[in-house]
Structure formats: C-alpha cells, structure tokens
C-alpha cells in the first residue's frame, strides 16, 4: 500500500460506482487496548462481504482522508484513511495506519467476495 494520492484514489472509487460490490469495513483499536491502558473504552466494528451498490463515492482531501459512499438507501463511510492499493485481484484496499503502523480502519471494495 502507498500513501493516498487523492486524485488517483478518486478515479478508483469512481470505477466501482453503480456496480454490485463486496465491502469490508473495519474499525479497531485492538483487542489489547484496554489491557495496556485500562482507561481505554475499547470499541470497534467489522463487516465483511456485504454486497451493495453505491451511486457516488468521494474521498475528501484532508489527511488522513475520509471516504464516503452514498447508497440508494444509505451510507458507508470511513475516517482516517492513509494508504491504498489495488491488489492482484483488482480489489481496492484502503487502510488507515496509525503512527506505529497499526491498522485503525479499513475500507475495501471488490467485485468478488473476499476470502472467508
């Protein structure tokens, strides 16, 4: 993955618009967060291989970036996106890596389901 190039990422997001796509969306501060610091309220969310279709996708220029997808009946968004790549299967992988290189958020878009 490389640091987000906003214009390139926007083109990639546009290319998946108005198609049935599978989404991986994840936020996490790690299962050990409250173990290392008991003041941390540990929360996160995870969905994988939910099929949807978005009509408009947008990456906002602030760094780290926010990426939002507007659906017919709703929304998907991720905050804190720093890195992206199109992998060997043509899937768009976006991630927010914190200052220590740990994943804090992921948003991934694929025309075929992700593995399990």
């Amino acid at each position: 993955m490389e640091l987000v190039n906003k214009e390139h990422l926007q083109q990639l997001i546009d290319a998946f618009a108005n198609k049935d796509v599978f989404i991986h969306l994840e936020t996490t501060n790690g299962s050990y967060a409250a173990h290392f610091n008991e003041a941390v309220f540990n929360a996160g969310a995870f969905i994988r291989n939910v099929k949807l279709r978005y009509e408009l996708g947008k990456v906002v220029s602030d760094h780290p970036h926010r990426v939002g997808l507007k659906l017919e009946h709703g929304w998907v968004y991720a905050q804190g996106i720093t890195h992206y790549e199109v992998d060997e299967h043509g899937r768009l992988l976006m991630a927010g890596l914190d200052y220590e290189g740990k994943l804090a958020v992921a948003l991934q878009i694929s025309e075929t389901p992700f593995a399990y």
Partner: protein
Amino acid sequence: MFTDQRHVLIVFPHPDDEAFSCAGVVRQMTKRNIPVTYACLTLGEMGRNLGNPPFATRESLPEIRREELRKAADAMGIQDLRMFGLRDKTIEFEDDEKMVQLVSDLIDELNPSLVITFLPGFSVHPDHEATARAVVEAVRRMRKDERPTIIAVGFANDTVDKMGLPHIKVDITDVKMDKLAALQAHASQTAWMIAESEKREETADELSDNWLTTEAFYVIEHAE
C-alpha cells in the same frame, strides 16, 4: 512434568500465541522426542500491525502469518501443525458446541497426556477466552481417569491477584535461543517488540529478557 508425556496438544487461536507462552517448554519436550500437536485455530488475519510504511495489507496478512507459523513450528520442533481456518476475532461467535467438539475430536484422535491453552477468565483476548473455554469443557466431559492435565497461560493484569502465583514455573534458559527463533519467525508481529527489547537490554533493564528465561502456567483441575 515435561519429561515423560505421551503426547502434548497445544490449542491456541493465533499464530504467535504459542511462541510467547510456551515455546520454551515445547522445545524442551520436542528435544526429548515427545510428540507435540499444535492446533492453531486462525491465521491471525485481523492483526493490526501492517507497518508504516506498510509491509502487508488486510488481505495479504494471513498468508504471511501462515508462513511465519510454519517457521515457528520448525524452531520449536513441532512436527504436527494443524491450521483450522477459523477467522481471527470470531471464535467467541462460533457455535460453542462446535468448538468443544473440535477439541474433543483432537483429544480422541491424539490421546494427549498434556494440553496447553489459555487460562479462562485471565487471557485478555476474546479469542483466547473462547478457545480456553472450549478446551476446558472438552476435558471436563471426559472420564476423570482419562483426562489429560491442562496447563494454562494467564496474563490479564489481575491474574496473580485473583489466582495467586502460577503453579508451575519453568526455567527455559537452555532453549532460550530456540524460543527467540520462534518469536523471530513471527516477524510481522514481533519485530517491533524484539527491537524494543534489544534497546532495553542496552540500557540494562533487568526485566528485558524474563520472557526468554521463564515460562509459567496454572494447572486447571476439574472438581469432578
């Protein structure tokens, strides 16, 4: 305890759980040709450490960790490594009975005299807890005279307060380099930690290599 086992079964959810918690005693046993089976339930595919700049993606991490696990098993002399293909961070949401059955099937097949897992209630990660619950329940269902001994690793902050000191402390200095090799095999997870530890060693922090010299376990006994 670690000299005359018939067969040892290790059950943990993540590649590297074994390296941190029991690589030393496992190596001591494989050196004595005691057969060891490691059942590793996931590939740790939800691991957060991808690096910055990143060396992996959410999707490439599992294959990296599969290879690391194989190398770590080699370092520990484990010949029977089994990967179960469950998804990291989902073990507690699987059907509980299915998880117990998974462990029961392994015990039926291998007839282990010793099982190593986490200590229920004191193992911090939800996958650790769910794995440990399944192991303890599978053994509880056995006839008392057929049960293997369970030794368990607890590391929650309140473990010693509530459980007392571990029942077994093992000096592993004789296999320290093998344990280090197992930890190093899990480079995607441990590289930063080993670097930190080396830094500490330079500043002569006396705690720096405790985890390379001692391993500690609680023995889980069933009342009936």
